[in-house]
């Protein structure tokens, strides 16, 4: 295992980012605890082409925004990539809210109902890290304790809220 990882590290740097924006592999997810509704409201800002690549991988066929099955496939991608664990280690069940497409960016909305507090929570966001070695996922958390940022790269494990 160790030896194989060393091989991996040698080559991943060969894909420098291009001069234009199109090849920055970054997603931004906002996780906000709505104390009035007692729900965890999650908004993901994803590059639309990256999302379509992930959907194609999930379903085994190319699908684009607006086609039947696209939302369900996006939800599957998101559920696999984004996990929020409660203090006892149990993952929260995410409910689908919807998505909207703004030319090159897709906004994905999911929520977890019945969340009275986020104390002791951990999370992990691995979206697209299986597709792009340079993928970085930024998560902004807003809850009663304030605002924090957590970033995830491929291979990162759960991090505290």
């Amino acid at each position: 295992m160790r030896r194989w990882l060393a091989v991996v590290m040698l080559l991943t740097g060969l894909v420098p980012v291009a001069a234009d924006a199109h090849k920055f592999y970054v997603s931004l997810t906002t996780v906000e605890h709505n104390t009035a509704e007692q729900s965890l409201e999650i908004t993901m800002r994803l590059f639309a082409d990256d999302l379509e690549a992930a959907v194609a991988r999930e379903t085994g066929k190319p699908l684009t925004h607006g086609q039947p099955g696209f939302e369900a496939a996006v939800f599957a991608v998101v559920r696999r990539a984004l996990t929020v664990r409660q203090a006892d280690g149990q993952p929260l069940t995410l409910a689908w809210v919807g998505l909207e497409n703004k030319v090159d960016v897709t906004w994905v909305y999911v929520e977890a109902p019945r969340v009275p507090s986020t104390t002791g929570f951990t999370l992990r966001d691995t979206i697209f890290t299986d597709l792009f070695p340079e993928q970085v996922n930024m998560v902004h958390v807003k809850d009663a304790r304030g605002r924090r940022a957590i970033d995830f790269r491929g291979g990162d494990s759960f991090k505290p809220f």
Partner: protein
Amino acid sequence: MTRYTASVVAFVLAIVTPAFAQPQGAPPDKFRQLEEILPTPNEQRTASGAPGRAYWQQRADYDIDVTLDDVKQRITGKETVTYYNQSPDPLTYLWLQLDQNLFRKDSDTALTAPAPSLERPTFETLDTLVNRDFDGGFQIAAVTDATGKPLPHTIVKTMMRIDLAAPLAPGKSVVFGVAWSYNINDAKRLGGRSGYEFFPKDGNYIYEIAQWFPRLAAYNDVSGWQHKQFLGSGEFTLEFGNYKVRITAPNDHVVGATGVLQNPQAVLTAAQLQRLEQAKTASAPVLVVTPAEAKAAEAGKATGTKTWVFHAENVRDFAFASSRKFIWDAQGHRSGTQPVLAMSYYPNEGNPLWAQYSTAAIIHTLNLYSRYSFDYPYPIAISVNGPVGGMEYPMICFNGPRPEPDGTYTARTKYALISVVIHEVGHNYFPMIVNTDERQWTWMDEGINSFLQFLAEQEWEDNYPSRRGEPKNMVEYMTAPGHDPIMTNSESVKELGNNAYGKPATALNILRETVMGRELFDFAFREYSRRWKFKRPMPADFFRTMEDASAIDLDWFWHGWFYTTDHTDLSLDDVRHFTLNTKNPETEKTLQRQQQTAAPTTLSAERYRDTPKLVEQNPALADFYNRFDPLAVTPADREEYQKVLGALTDKEKALIGSNKNFYVMRFSNVGGLVMPIILKLDYVDGTSEELRIPAEIWRRDASKVSKLVITDKVLSQVTLDPKLETADTDLSNNFFPRKPVMTRFQLFKQQQQTTPNPMQQLERKPGTDAPRPQGPGQ
């Protein structure tokens, strides 16, 4: 004002206790002058931000023969370089950049790459990781002096030092030669700013060749030798010079390059020559090589080679593209007095998008960028479609977006293409002509260029879907704890797209629209561009010129936006309404009665209102005080008022009677960034006006300020930053009285719940509730 306060009775219409948050960010004086941070002005760079009287820069001329091997995907070249030492310093050695060494297996880039995720890697990822068979990097065959004698040289990663036989004195030049070769990277598989793309369908290649020859590193008055190693993100800066390049390629290839083709008769057919001539005066792109000719070439094989000769003057680099798959279109354009040929090279796979948009976008870019900076000084402007997503070189750039294989395309692909062509062609101005150093400061070309790209997009069509430029699009990034200031070296920036493209583009747009105004900004920006055209500015030169040409002290802006990670979050904490005490008992007592009536009735008082009272049932218990109305106007009140009036001059009487409303507004700075306060004042009569207060309001106290607004009319609502021009990150404290502000999530969810989808709208029965949309299955 003080004179009035004494005679003014304050009655507070509404006060809330704001939740004060402590502003973050260290410097207590947000307006402290930048001189203490910027380098001391000198003879090379003046305090006004212009090149000084002793400004100098080096020059390197290249004479290159290069052969493209289409069988082995290999470049072989030899160059004769004439290096002019125009610095005041003797040089004992020269440094050259060997960018291809980025692809060496032992490069720092490879060695320092973070581990990728190995959960469910794709076959493509695995293939890239496991089949590391690419043998990249320069093989330097010879380094020789002008007589062909070997020169000692040392390769240090992506740099090479050539030791000169004798120090190169100021004002002298040296001639030397280098011979080299390297394997071209598969850009689709390994990435890169250049490389090849293989088309399995027809067995052909597109080559986009750049950073392909040993190039003189910059030597300048600020960095000395700029030989910071190439790690992949920080692009480059180079020296200007003249190029003579002979490119030998398969004889069925079409080659486009930096510079003017010197031997069209030798490489083009008579028909192509004629079309190229016709293109110079055409009002739409003319096909020099048609789709059918490109298709025919794809099916054939080269029978030999051809050598294309290009000359380029006063450029800081040279790149080219070559393929038998290329369609080639061209259209003449004029930038000031400079005739320009705008040209695009793309395979049939690029159509229909490329024929329609690429050359049109080149010309639009030249028009717009020239308006804001200077006329385009080069005779050629090229956009090429190939494997590279977007990368710029002088006169030529590589742009990736392409339609689907069936010829259809999404709106996203269309706008991605137009935007990337604007962006990469725009790079001709910054940094190919205004020669900033991207190895050090990415924002100086990417940020400035993304800003101009936004202006170009906004003039392309209504509501162009620009990604960067609008302040509201930067809010998420600017509130991210732990993000980097813009003034961070290119290789250390965590989110290059937001940090070096988005945030500076937004900052400049805010400077132009909100802080300086379009006229002052455009004048100063044009001055910066003009001063540093074909020269090498540093951040201080930009900061200083923008102030120097505008008489606007911008040090607070550069501090806040470029050196810190503060964000804009201004809060309108409260608004208090004062009116003048007229001393007129009729007016004042009526007002007091209104206030009394308006005051809330307690629950007990309300419940006892109808209960029979003892004093009413037994009038013997009533006395003077049961009848006394303290708010009734008495003769004594009137007499007193006449006395007061008698003591006033006519002017004072008019002031008292002016009926003005005094509003004291209090603001706090939650985000730390000082910004202008832009207010929309809505009046009860339905009218409104805008009040723009410059950022200097924060100069004595950057955390809390107040502002007095005097109006004839009564306010109903005050809104801070009503047009979202300051990147304010929290709108919930921008309204007084407060208004609920929903998050993006809540807005979306509400919209989902209230708007049935089109199918539901069609099937909906009158009088029934909108059905809740169903999400995909759990």
